[in-house]
């Protein structure tokens, strides 16, 4: 956690001047929005997180002006607001791109290809983590688990889901974003800019017709269990391998073209008390 605001990070003994205020018209507009946000809570301070999203919607990142605005409205010190704004990762502290491309590199996605995707995008865009392309379109970052592990590897753009990505699909995705094409996520509404997204996060419904409906119902992986329970084929599986089962345990005879459609009945080295770690040595061989 780097706790320094973007300016005045190097102290030279001179206290920083207070941040400039928003122009009167902007302030009037934001104050009306803020009043609505504050009205949702029994205690006004609860509105601070949504208000920080709101000022982020105004300028694309949380500025000193924005923090001063929040402090004024909620009767807090700017120090109190800065302490909060710097705690949470979704508040950007410097100007960034219209599209924030986040590659999940938590363990499961990383292993399934997230690391490779992140590397490919860095090379493709010529930027590193938390950097923005020169045209100001794309900010690249790696993100933590986004609750979509059954769609791994996952890429989020402005916090919309792009499921089951590969280095190729991810490169095409950022190319399309930079070319200004309309890009549709796997689940959810067609992309809007980061600032428009931030306004939804502040608690204002998406004004676009069809935004709620877009992307349909549950994603395919979300339906895996339901489909099975209804007697349908598993999506992504080679066929109806699950039922009905009249004769022997299916994996006693590996299905054709399917050397080990499941791990269960195979003897593993784990059963060897001298090598409780199991498949490690196998992994080494296969890994080479």
């Amino acid at each position, binding site marked *: 956690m780097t706790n320094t605001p973007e300016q005045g990070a190097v102290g030279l003994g001179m206290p920083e001047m207070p941040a400039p205020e928003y122009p009167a018209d902007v302030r009037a507009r934001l104050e009306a929005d803020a009043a609505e946000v504050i009205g949702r809570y029994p*205690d006004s*301070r*609860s*509105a601070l*997180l949504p208000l920080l999203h709101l000022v982020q919607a105004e300028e694309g990142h949380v500025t000193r002006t924005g923090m001063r605005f929040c402090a004024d409205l909620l009767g807090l010190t700017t120090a109190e607001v800065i302490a*909060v704004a710097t*705690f*949470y990762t979704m508040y950007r502290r410097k100007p960034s791109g219209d599209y924030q491309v986040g590659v999940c*590199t*938590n*363990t*499961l996605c990383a*292993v399934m*290809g997230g690391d*490779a995707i992140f590397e490919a995008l860095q090379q493709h865009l010529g930027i590193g983590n938390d950097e923005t392309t020169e045209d100001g379109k794309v900010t690249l970052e790696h993100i933590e*688990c986004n*609750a*979509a*592990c*059954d769609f*791994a590897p996952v890429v*989020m753009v402005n*916090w919309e*889901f792009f499921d089951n990505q*590969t280095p190729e699909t991810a490169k095409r995705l950022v190319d399309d974003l930079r070319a200004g094409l309309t890009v549709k996520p796997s689940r*959810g509404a067609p992309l809007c800019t980061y600032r428009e997204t931030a306004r*939804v996060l*502040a*608690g204002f*419904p998406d004004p676009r017709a069809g935004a*709620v409906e877009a992307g349909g*119902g*549950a994603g395919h*992986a*979300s*339906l*895996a*269990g*339901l489909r*099975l*329970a209804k*007697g349908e084929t598993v999506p992504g*599986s080679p066929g109806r391998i*699950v*039922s009905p*089962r009249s004769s*022997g*345990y299916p994996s006693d005879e590996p299905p054709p073209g399917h050397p080990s*459609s*499941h*791990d*269960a*009945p195979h003897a593993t080295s*784990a059963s060897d008390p001298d*090598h409780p*770690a*199991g*498949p490690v040595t196998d*992994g*080494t061989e296969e890994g080479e």
Partner: protein
Amino acid sequence: MSVATQLNEESPEKLLSPVLSAFWDEPDSWTLETYLRHDGYQGMRKALEMPPDDVIAYVKDSGLRGRGGAGFPTGMKWQFIPQGDGKPHYLVVNADESEPGTCKDIPLLFANPHSLIEGMVIACHAIRSHHAFIYLRGEVVPVLRRLHHAVAEAYRAGYLGKDIAGSGFDLDITVHAGAGAYICGEETALLDSLEGRRGQPRLRPPFPAVAGLYACPTVVNNVESIASVPAILNRGKEWFRSMGSDKSPGFTLYSLSGHVTSPGQYEAPLGITLRQLLDVSGGMRPGHRLKFWTPGGSSTPMFTDEHLDVPLDYEGVGAAGSMLGTKALQCFDETTCVVRAVTRWTEFYAHESCGKCTPCREGTYWLVQLLRDIEAGKGRMADLDKLADIADNINGKSFCALGDGAASPIFSSLKYFRDEYEEHVTGGGCPFDPALSTAWGGASHLEVNA
């Protein structure tokens, strides 16, 4: 093999029990109209006709336990709310879902948000609350849209607001988007965050039931816990108890991910095994086998293929040395380096440590330094003991359970895969090829073999 043969008779239709997910495949599953076609708001009608204390007793008798990780009995939690204290009471739904591997609440809210709203009406009636909050992690904007929409629909239909369904009961719901911090899933950090502060855990006691949001009596429940309540009221506690075991009754969402043929959500009675789930869903990806897995997210000690028959309920997983947690079944096959996996999880904990207490803040930092060295082949044998030692200094000695969670992957991986750590030290690096673990790498691997 007796377990396997017995499974033979069991079809997925019998093993699985979709309740919350029963109509996710309908085209407009998230709308009020669809929900009403599937017994929507029937449980609420029954509950509103009952005295609040009877609702609490009913949920307690059903045996429902919290689905947010700890498995605390839901009805008992509601019972702790003091009555007649003259203070406002609050219900806060924990929709922060950020535990690595956990991916059940987000699809549930995307496809069926009304089950949560109905559950919230019932819970608030029971604990005499008139204002409830949904704390949703911010990084899921499509879900936020659907929640805004569903809440608005419920207000329009008279299921929220004043005099709900003519019962005289009033309830307002505020949807609140977080701003990115795993620790805000911890219930007291969540309350601080909802009060507009840095999300850092609070000292307990006092517990939230006594002094929670704005120092008032507060229930914090997971999304899935609350969303399970309407079906219990509507179909009966006996029906609920007919699934699962005596101590872990009912249905729940299991999230299968990783190197499996069919990752996804599987709603089943508590106590199903990973072997059964893999068996019905096509198993591990072709040509590979299970190496290690988490029963309930990265904070629960990992299991290996020796644990395929552990009943996935609170007691079964506990007896086998781990925790049911969030039922996030992340499955890794033999191409995966366990040191790499644990290093990445530990980096996550170090990044997400809120910094309030020393064992976790410093400990996770040093764990990362050691693990990175080991992974890069620059470690020493003594580092393995040092890892265990630091983990021991975090576990049980931290201010909140994030610290314990950070220690889990270290302890469990050293227990089952110590020789793999040693191999990194003696071999001067990682013996695995990460390309083989990728979603696309497995297939080419198969071609090479075939």
